[in-house]
């Protein structure tokens, strides 16, 4: 690990340690004047973060491949929570088998291949919304059961979209080129030379396929980008919760999520923007204003994720995915904001990289 990564991880650990200490003290005192329910919520969140932080750091230190596998497992578990909650019919069984054992591993395999430089025309970004969505509909039609057909296909598609497709953008951050390829500058200077020797043009085309054959001068930058993203999502969740505790309440959608207020959303977004800007050094090549802007985007997407999952849970009459089956953690409750924020964070980051010449969009 390089100095910046160690700095970021140590900073997060220090923050987590401090938060744990404060909440631990608050839990033991009954005269603090703070609602014990709020303290308990924070306590549960902090416990989840320790696990999240430990697993993520371990995975990033061992290898990027391990990170992709880790996200695959999270995705698998989230999807089984999602499908368990949404009613399907016995005739959907075969389609569901494909979804769990073929589509989900394939999606993460494509992300993994991207990490090793196989640019499969961005196949991981269209596999599910194009091929799999059509496949799921056709497969269910083939089962010969037309009852509530659109309902059933939509449920499976929504589960795939949120739990697999969106989440797979988090490990895909590891594949973004965060340093300029050395050939980028030279390619601009000498546009394709028709007289070029075929012997030398061959390595260039193979270098196109394996875009990361060159050495990245800052090998930890992708891991830090992912870490920054997860950290900002978690901070925005917490800060929105903290800000929504202030007395004057303007609840955004009372019938869906009575805890989400405008004060919470705007206060949370403003706070993470400041923290994101202060952490700009961790995610080169992005400037501080971009870090702040992305933090605001994360805060809004996290809010969107929480409110969407809330609507699904309310419709199914459960409080959270964890209570669905007693004893299970409810992974989906923890990662709803990550799922919604990941694709938007990935694409905005990618636009910036294309605009500044890190990435050739036509390649």
């Amino acid at each position, binding site marked *: 690990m390089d100095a910046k990564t160690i700095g970021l991880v140590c900073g997060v650990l220090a923050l987590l340690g401090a938060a744990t200490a404060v909440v631990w003290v608050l839990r033991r005192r009954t005269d603090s004047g703070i609602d014990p329910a709020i303290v308990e919520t924070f306590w549960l969140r902090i416990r989840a973060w320790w696990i999240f932080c430990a697993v993520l750091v371990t995975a990033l230190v061992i290898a990027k491949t391990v990170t992709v596998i880790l996200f695959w497992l999270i995705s*698998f578990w989230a999807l089984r929570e999602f499908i368990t909650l949404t009613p399907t019919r016995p005739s959907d069984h075969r389609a569901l088998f494909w979804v769990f054992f073929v589509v989900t591993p394939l999606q993460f395999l494509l992300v993994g291949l991207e990490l090793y430089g196989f640019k499969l025309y961005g196949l991981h970004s269209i596999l599910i919304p194009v091929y799999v969505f059509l496949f799921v509909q056709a497969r269910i039609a083939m089962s010969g059961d037309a009852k509530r057909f659109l309902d059933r296909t939509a449920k499976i598609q929504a589960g795939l979209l949120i739990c697999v497709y969106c989440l797979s953008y988090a490990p895909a951050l590891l594949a973004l080129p965060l340093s300029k390829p050395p050939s980028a500058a030279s390619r601009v200077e000498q546009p394709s030379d028709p007289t070029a020797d075929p012997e030398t043009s061959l390595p260039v085309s193979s270098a196109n396929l394996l875009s990361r054959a060159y050495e990245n001068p800052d090998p930890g930058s992708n891991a830090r980008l992912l870490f920054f993203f997860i950290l900002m999502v978690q901070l925005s969740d917490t800060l929105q919760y903290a800000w929504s505790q202030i007395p004057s309440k303007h609840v955004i959608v009372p019938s869906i999520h009575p805890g989400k207020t405008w004060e919470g959303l705007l206060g949370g977004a403003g706070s993470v923007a400041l923290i994101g800007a202060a952490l700009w050094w961790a995610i080169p090549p992005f400037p501080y204003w971009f870090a702040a802007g992305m933090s605001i985007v994360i805060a809004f997407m996290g809010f969107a994720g929480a409110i969407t999952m809330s609507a699904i849970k309310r419709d199914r009459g459960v409080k959270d995915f964890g209570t669905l089956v*007693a004893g299970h953690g409810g992974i989906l409750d923890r990662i709803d904001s990550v799922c919604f924020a990941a694709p938007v964070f990935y694409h905005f980051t990618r636009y910036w990289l294309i605009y500044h010449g890190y990435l050739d969009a036509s390649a």
Partner: protein
Amino acid sequence: MLQRLPSISPPIQVETPPVHIRIMGAGLALLAKFLSGASVRWIDSQPDTCQRVYFANHTSHLDAIVLWSALPAEVRALTRPVAAKDYWTAGRVRHYLATRVFNALLIDRTEIKVHQSPVDVMIREIGHRYSLIVFPEGGRTTGEGVSEFKSGLYYLCKKRPDLELIPVYIDNMNRILPRGEVLPVPLLSSISFGPPIWLEAGEPKADFLRRAREAVLRLKESY
């Protein structure tokens, strides 16, 4: 000098299964737990190695394996699922699993002999040591409700009223492996064990079977 013979029957010889069978058993239990995502709840009930009959609703071929896997290892070693011979001897893998790993008690559904009724076989096979897993609905249901119980449970208890009857409700297994499917889909299920019941002295068959069924339904409603 003649050695005095004990008046009671000699202690049952317990053969410890070979290591590879025990490893297979543990591995299979782990796989079943993963595939079924089963969370296990003991409601006013505790796992115990005393002789018991676990009776559950039946929606999937996986029910017996998942229930068996949900028990702690030492209880599992003494618990034998009662299963249909025709299904569990079709194919070598199934046969191996049923006879060697689960130590299942296979019942021939096609030819029932006069002095070999399934209940007689069960009583003979469990001796004073093993517990049983039975599905008194008689066959798999769609999972919507719990069917009426067949009378086998009553005759079993009439001959062995000392057996503890543990009601078990298995939830969502019909979606993991429904009727007529071969490949499971790994959704989350749950298994609830309830407090024991016994056959009361002189209790009529219909009353007892209704009471037993209601014990399972109560677990279903406890969600």
